[in-house]
């Protein structure tokens, strides 16, 4: 199977570890990810905040590049996925002139839903060498991946299940909680720190209350928000894993602590306790 891959800007910087784990996982699953030729930024929140036209045009260029390759797109970042889907719908509705001859016919997958399809779950289960037994997790989806449902196509947007299914497939104990899709504040913490902090602190507190030992995410910004607030070493840190990191861990019989050295909330202790590392 061959797919075009839209990594997004964070995967070159803050989320290099995410990019590495994606490479490893897709290699193990035998799926060929081809990075979109000269992809450019999707504009994220800034583009639609200040110029609605640019929020359609910027992702459209990437859709066009993928159409040239003729491969369906898979996106690892929640916001990029949302913006690509939004742009695609606007192109189909023909609301404004796009400088490129783009049709918007390709399918845009978000990575979690792609891997949570029944076939893929089977493939994942086949490759698990070391089930993550006894690891208590909560899955955190954030907002952009599931909302608004008319753009993302999620039908279970109040209680999404894709990450839950993937985490359960590798043997982890998934705990249900009520804050799956509550916003983490995104980039607001940079300009208004108290708003960002109040949102992330609440999420971590609720995860603790639910009895979780770690949080699974799929969005680079959610990860850095939830992780960076734990920079002042807490007594009981809650590691924030990308879901692909967990897949990678379960696919190999010996984990490598190097994979997690970019995390602030260090998961070494937890994983050693569960003899997973």
């Amino acid at each position, binding site marked *: 199977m061959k797919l075009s891959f839209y990594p997004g800007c964070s995967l070159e910087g*803050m989320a290099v570890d995410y990019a590495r784990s994606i490479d490893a996982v897709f290699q193990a699953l035998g799926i060929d990810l081809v990075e979109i030729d000269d992809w450019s930024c999707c504009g994220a929140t800034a583009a639609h905040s*200040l*110029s609605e*036209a640019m929020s359609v*045009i910027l992702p459209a260029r990437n859709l066009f590049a993928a159409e040239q390759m003729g491969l369906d797109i898979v996106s690892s970042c929640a916001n990029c996925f949302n913006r690509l889907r939004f742009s695609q719908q606007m192109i189909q509705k023909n609301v404004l002139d796009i400088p490129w001859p783009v049709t918007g016919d390709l399918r845009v997958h978000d990575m979690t839903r792609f891997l949570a399809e029944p076939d893929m779950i089977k493939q994942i289960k086949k490759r698990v060498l070391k089930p993550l037994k006894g690891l208590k997790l909560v899955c955190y989806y954030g*907002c952009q991946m599931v909302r608004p449902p008319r753009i993302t196509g999620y039908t279970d947007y109040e209680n999404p299940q894709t990450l839950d299914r993937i985490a359960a497939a590798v043997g982890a104990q998934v705990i249900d909680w009520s804050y799956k899709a509550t916003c983490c504040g995104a980039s607001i913490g*940079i*300009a208004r720190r108290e708003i960002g902090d109040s949102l992330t602190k609440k999420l971590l507190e609720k995860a603790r209350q639910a009895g979780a030992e770690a949080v699974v995410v799929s969005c680079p910004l959610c990860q850095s928000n939830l992780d960076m607030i734990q920079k002042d070493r807490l007594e009981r840190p809650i590691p924030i894993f990308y879901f692909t990191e967990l897949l990678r861990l379960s696919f190999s019989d010996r984990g490598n602590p190097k994979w997690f050295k970019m995390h602030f909330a260090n998961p070494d202790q937890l994983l050693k306790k569960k003899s997973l590392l």
Partner: protein
Amino acid sequence: MNTVVMKKERVGEPKSERILIGDRGGYFLKKIEGETRANISACYQCERCTNACPVSHFMDIKPHQIIRYVQLGWREELLKSSTIWVCLSCEMCTTFCPNEVGVAEVINHLRNIAAHSSITPKERNLAVFHQTFLEVLRKSGRVNEFRLMNAYYLKPNILHEKIKSGNLKEELLLGLTLLKKGRLKPFTSRSKPIKDIQKAYKNTRGEIV
């Protein structure tokens, strides 16, 4: 006996003088409805949006009030509010609205109007951050976090405020740790089709700089 003391007018509070509905309300409502294709007239003020909003307590005009203000045509109050900048576009309000009003889309559109108006944003830093993001994007086609943060700190007043609030040292240390951990990349990779993107900026008058 007129004992009403004229308080200093605050954004978010209705003016002391009553503005009649339909005075200019009809025009503004129709304009916003047409541009966003949101069902603003269908709002019956159930406050579901405000209850769902994770940041409503940081807003001066609450999301359901935003919709009401649009119905009333209170343009200046809306554009001067902090709400339009604090909104995270998390789409909780839109998703759970029983009448499918599209609250987040309306707020986003108001933010667009405010960005292109002469009104000073109430949340200046948030507006500056968005603008910096687009500037960095226009330069290299991709956004490098290291360059973004540098450019943001060099904007007027931002550094000054950080020094005054005493957060500067902490944030510099954080940046250093991030560099050490390899999460920040000092060098940027350029997307080749940058010329096309810059042209699109110009043609859509996307440049807000």
